[in-house]
């Protein structure tokens, strides 16, 4: 069931077009990430959904209700900002109860709800403290509890983890995810961190320069990027200039690669670019009988802990550099080091062609 429906959302600041004709529908209970580089319009889109900015054109429906021009107070959402925006002069309990007090509920009921929420975000009993007495991660949990207190139908998260340390960030994002599952609240999170988006989202909306490039599950977006931008923005990728030979075959250097079925569209003779991820190769075991075997020399190794990224000069590609990833074990087993010569096979079934 569609919970939130955006149609033809456009936003211009003077002559600058921040958003162009955004269409998007979000299902009830879904966790959606708006992902893109800074300035792509993702935060503007979130603020338009919140009513903190007004779109130049286009409509927004939430649960069938037209909220396009309603002020924030008449919409139904809770919001968490990167800066936490906790009221520093109020205790944690007063912060969490901020939206409840206004509803004229009995005091005991509010206190119980506050404690329940604090337990939910893993900080029971911290109600008497002031925000300044908490760490960044704890403050963001309180901000989350405050946003959830009034049981909103929609939770908006504006880069909630960006101000936190790497370790806290990974920890908290898992908690946000499990909390969201538990409560089933439809959630939109804005982030510029692709790893964060892929680990947390049901679907990712990849944005660039005011347009949506692709909407899909994290796996979709990674494996089948719809545009060159998505392919290059998410994960690492090798871009190889090539010529189409028709019927899904391409010539790159001295190699002839057979792409997967969707590559048929490129007519013979067209100049194209082949996108191949560093892990899309076979390097272990018997390579006999496998297509697209190549030899190359390792020219540089970037060590990443559990894996490494080797830059290789491939003979069949006339020395064109190719990034290839190896696990730590493969690194040892295959002897990956600068100057080593290795044989491997490219997985042309993984090719994306643009």
């Amino acid at each position, binding site marked *: 069931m569609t919970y939130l429906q955006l149609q033809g959302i456009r936003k*211009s600041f003077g002559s600058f077009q921040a958003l162009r004709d955004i269409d998007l529908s979000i299902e009830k209970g879904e966790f959606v990430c708006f992902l893109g580089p800074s300035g792509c319009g993702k935060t503007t889109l979130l603020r338009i959904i*919140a*009513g*903190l900015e*007004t*779109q*130049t*054109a*286009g409509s927004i429906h939430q649960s069938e209700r037209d909220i*396009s*021009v*309603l*002020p*924030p*107070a*008449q*919409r139904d*959402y*809770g*919001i968490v*900002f990167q*800066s*936490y*925006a906790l*009221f*520093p*002069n*109020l205790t944690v309990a007063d912060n969490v109860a*901020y*939206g409840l007090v*206004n509803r004229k509920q009995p005091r005991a009921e509010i206190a119980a709800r506050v404690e329940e929420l604090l337990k939910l975000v893993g900080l029971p009993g911290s109600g008497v*403290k*002031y*925000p*300044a*007495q*908490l*760490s960044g991660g704890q403050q963001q949990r309180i901000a989350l509890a*405050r*946003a959830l*207190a*009034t049981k*909103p139908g929609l939770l908006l998260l504006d880069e909630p983890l960006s101000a936190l340390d790497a370790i806290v960030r990974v920890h908290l994002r898992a908690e946000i995810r499990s909390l969201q599952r538990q409560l089933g609240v439809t959630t939109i999170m804005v982030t510029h961190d692709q790893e964060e988006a892929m680990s947390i989202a049901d679907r990712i909306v990849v944005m660039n320069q005011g347009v949506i490039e692709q909407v899909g599950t994290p796996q979709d977006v990674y494996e089948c990027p719809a545009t060159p931008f998505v392919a290059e923005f998410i994960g690492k990728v090798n871009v190889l200039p090539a010529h189409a030979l028709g019927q899904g075959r391409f010539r790159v250097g001295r190699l002839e690669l057979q792409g997967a079925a969707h590559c048929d569209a490129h007519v013979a003779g067209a100049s194209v670019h082949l996108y191949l991820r560093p892990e899309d190769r076979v390097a272990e075991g018997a390579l006999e009988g496998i297509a697209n075997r190549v030899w190359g020399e390792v020219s540089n190794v970037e060590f990443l802990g559990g894996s490494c990224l080797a830059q290789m000069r491939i003979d069949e590609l006339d020395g064109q550099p190719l990034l290839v990833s190896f696990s730590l074990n493969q690194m040892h087993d295959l002897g990956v080091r600068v100057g080593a010569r290795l044989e491997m096979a490219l997985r042309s079934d993984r090719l994306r062609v643009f």
Partner: protein
Amino acid sequence: MSAVLPLPTVVALRQRAHWTDRIAHAALLLVVLALVVFLALPLASILVKSLQNGEGAFVGLANFTSYLASPSLLSSLWHSVWVSLMVTLVTLPLAFGFAYALSRSCMPFKGLSRTIALVPLLAPSLLSALSLIYWFGNQGIARGFIQALGFETIYGAPGIVIAECFAVFPHALMILITALSLADARLYEAANALGTSTRRKFFTITLPGAKYGLISAALVAFTLVMTDFGIPKVIGGNFNMLATDVFKLVIGQQDFQRGAVVGLLLLLPAVLTFVVDWLISRKQTSMLSARAVPYRPSPAPVFDALMTGYTLLISALMLAMLGMAVFASFASFWPYDLSLTLKHYTMGWVDAEIGDAFVNSLKLAAGTAFFGTIIVFTGAYMLEKTRGLDVLRPVVRLLAMLPMAVPGLVLGLGYIFFFNAPGNPLNGLYQTLPLLVLCTIVHFYTTGHLTAVTALKALDAEFESVSASLKVPFFKTFWRVTLPICTPTLLDIARYFFINAMTTISAVVFLYSPSTKVAAIAILNLDEAGEAGAAAACAILITAGSTLVTLLFIALGWWVNRRTQAWRNTTTP
């Protein structure tokens, strides 16, 4: 079919306003209305008056040409310019030395020296002129000294220059202390590592770093002297200046047209100051990065001793100025009977109406502090933290900055022209205390406004967004969050309004009636009537009152900090 399709004209969507937004809009409109009526229109009426003849007919620039043809008025213009220049040239290096001693040496008694040097801010500016007369006037105790220096008399230019130096010194000092304390220690460490001489460090790091402060202080000093009215009135004798001319033309001769012309001339340096200040403040922002390391002076016995001596000398001069006024206010019959008495206070309180005037001053100051703080803070909040009415916001910003560029004398002049006009429905306000309060609020609006805006900008910009998402109206958040956090700022603004309202003369001198005369004006009247002792007593009363209130505000601030700012003193785990 044409190749170019006409673009469809898109009307941007507009969000429906919530009823709480409408309250904010109404409040913002009220602030704009107040600033237009009590600032823009009075100023506009000066402009109009300057282009009209006595019967109200438009005469173009005739008033200006006839002004320029009048040799006596031209000589006033020349007097004002060179006196202001002279004071600026004398005060600036003196204040720079003092500020340098406070921020760059390890001299003892820094806090005390600073306090003494800033004391004149608590007194009406003409206190120094009164003291000078007691020191060097016709019956002054050190009259011979001034004659030995080759001056025939203290009255006129010499007295004005010396008195203005004292009055302007603390203003320049405050700016320069700020400029000099914003130093990045890393620059000096780098210079030391390169073996740079002290002299070279001063000219290549210190002076360029304080450049904007120096320009700003010079402009402020020049404008203050140019537009000051009290000192030339008391000690100027027959030495005419623009500020005293305005008063004579408007109050004495009822020549409103020429008064308006002189008023506009006085506006010029202030507007120039305002523009230059605005231009340099835009450049200055990037000077000190967040990573700068604050400069800490290290002990240097000879230099520190020199600096101590210098500050002692200046402080002694300041105290001599204040002390003489205090002493004179207690002296029975200057200079013949110097036995101490309270009669200037007791008799003046009743006979010379110092009592009524002092009570009026307190009313004016309290009213200005109370209503001024409310208006300024509300205006700043509506401007910075609410949404909608985007056309109006630049107007509010401009109107809030404008008072900085308008000398009090010019503002007061505008008030006469505007509120005393027979057709004005607000005519009834003329010469009443509420109008004096409003005029004083407007006169000192900008500093209060900037203080409030700075405090509000330091708050998270998303408080209002969060409140809206929780369906809490903005005024509730204003009351529960914004106000409590900003209480110390509110106290600062209130204190600033109070002190300035106690000591101001220039704006209110045009607007008082016998029943609303304030103490600072009473000094002028007493001085004119030859009641020097009572005049000194009145000036000392104002100073004592301001000092007491400052101390009260400090105590209140301490109490408020303990009561409402507990959350600031908590430690992060």
